[in-house]
């Protein structure tokens, strides 16, 4: 019963978020000066007023704003994200084309950051004040403070150009025509640098957080008394300290999912990764508002879904927490 209530509440929340985002973004983005027709005409290098008028009529930009808005909301309510005139495809198609790349990149980065960060955090906490802790904490702090795009460029120069170990960018080697496992390996090779670039900042963040969290859990009474009773140290870590210490890290992951998507814009730009972040960036500057609205909606839904996952994970890590 409680869980039914929980799902109903979540569903209402999602609907609320979707509509809210649609309304805010629609009006926000229409404040931007210039329109898609002028961008297209500008890129064409030459144009005439009737060419631009024809484009505007084709895009529906000649309609008053309230009609455009009514149409847009009407579309959303029927699960239709509209049409990108710029790209000549329905927005949903475009998003679905790019979504796998972004999910792959984000998933790998988060996995890398979460696993690596937790492990390093535990390691540092176990050796608190000693060499390993100092090295881990210092390096984490440095990565935490370095601009992300900067790391990306340096990684390309070192690992692609100097050492020639990994490809410069893109998602696959087109000319090779790989299939099956060879293709998967090829994509994996292309994935390494962007995923590491995007993940390093969060790795640093989670390392710091996990270290603090482990230290705080270890100072709690029930752990202290267990230690005093001579409970096996490893068992204690695995069974009690780590699960409890993971709670704030998981929370943080839920909170940061939106910002990881934002970071994807930079990483996808540096590495020519064909994902949603770059598409959003381009849509913004091309005034492809239908597409941009669609991507923003889609990323908001991802954020809500991930937070849903975080709640579920919570109840796994700590059975005392119920879904409510």
């Amino acid at each position, binding site marked *: 019963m409680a869980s039914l209530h929980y799902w109903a509440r979540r569903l209402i929340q999602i609907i609320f978020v979707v509509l809210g985002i649609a309304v805010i973004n629609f009006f926000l983005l229409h404040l931007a000066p210039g329109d898609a027709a002028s961008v297209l005409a500008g890129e064409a290098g030459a144009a005439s007023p009737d060419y631009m008028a024809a484009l505007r009529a084709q895009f529906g930009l000649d309609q008053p704003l309230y009609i455009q808005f009514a149409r847009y909301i009407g579309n959303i309510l029927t699960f239709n994200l509209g049409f990108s005139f710029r790209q000549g495809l329905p927005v949903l198609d475009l998003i679905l084309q790019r979504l796998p790349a972004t999910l792959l990149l984000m998933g790998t980065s988060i996995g890398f950051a979460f696993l690596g960060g937790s492990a390093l955090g535990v390691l540092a906490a176990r050796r608190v004040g000693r060499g390993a802790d100092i090295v881990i904490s210092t390096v984490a702090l440095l990565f935490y403070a370095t601009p992300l795009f900067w790391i990306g460029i340096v990684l390309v120069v070192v690992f692609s150009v100097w050492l020639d170990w990994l490809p410069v960018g893109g998602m696959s080697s087109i000319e090779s025509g790989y299939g099956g496992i060879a293709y998967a390996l090829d994509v994996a090779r292309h994935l390494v640098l962007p995923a590491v670039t995007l993940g390093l900042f969060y790795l640093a*963040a989670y390392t710091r957080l996990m270290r603090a969290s482990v230290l705080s859990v270890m100072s709690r009474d029930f752990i202290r008394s267990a230690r005093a009773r001579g409970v096996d140290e490893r068992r204690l870590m695995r069974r009690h300290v780590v699960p409890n210490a993971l709670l704030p890290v998981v929370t943080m992951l839920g909170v940061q999912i939106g910002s990881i998507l934002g970071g994807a814009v930079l990483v996808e730009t540096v590495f020519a990764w064909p994902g949603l972040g770059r598409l959003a960036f381009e849509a913004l500057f091309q005034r492809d508002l239908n597409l941009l609205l669609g991507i923003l909606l889609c990323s908001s839904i991802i954020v809500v879904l991930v937070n849903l996952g975080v709640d579920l994970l919570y109840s796994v890590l700590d059975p005392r927490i119920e879904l409510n």
Partner: protein
Amino acid sequence: MALAEPDELGAPAGALMPQSGPCLAMRLLRRPCAVIGLILLAVILFMAASANWLYPDDPLDMVALPFLWPGDDPAFPLGTDMLGRDLIAGIFHGARVSLAIGVVATFVSLLIGVGIGLLAGYHGKRLDQGLMRATELFQTIPPFLFVLAVVAILQPSIPAIVLAIGITSWPGLARIVRAETLKLRQSEFVEALIGMGLPSWRIILFHILPGTLAPIIVSASMMVATAILTESSLAFLGLGDPNVISWGGMVGAGREVLRTDWYVATLPGIAILVAVLALNLLGDGLNDALDAKQHQ
């Protein structure tokens, strides 16, 4: 990058009472990390304060040959960039701009975040519900995309960048302040004040706000660091203000000569790193110091 959320390291829970200043300062000075952070920050503040006095000329002036490497000419210890602008003058003046962007953007975000947090936490019920829904809504929009959109709409200039960072980085803070306020609101002390018939604005401003200051201060130092990183990312994507010199703008401009003249982008990049490092160390130190106090 708007990557770090203000509640990154978990603000100290339940710092109920206003801090006594000197005691906190002593505590802070006993932490080596915090001391290093303070020293670095002092260096950067010195650079910002002395820029006009040490380098009185416009740092955007083309004063020498382009691409003088650091050490080529003692008059330009850090060398010059592609248009012959003095890099050290740029870094000193850039400190002013970058810090100003960080501080003002954080201030904007504090105004919104603290305001919403206090109102929601104090009044509860409908208002709380409404404000928290709005906060959640803002939290689901990827903050960096939001910043990009706002800067694109307002056009890249310092006020636009500050505003964009300010209005996108408050939700985390609002939630922390709300949680603190909720706790204080339920305390007997506040119940008593309400019973005495004090107007709620006075209770909020003079009795609840001071109690939430500790997490706000910790968050603020992190938010300044994040704002500086965000500005540099915007500049990287070509959305900096071209009329003033900021570290982000210098990195952005130097990026295209990275492979040939790496120092042009690297030196201001190091300045960003140092500033962000200093603020984070200070934030950590404050957090620990406040934590320790609370554990007493």
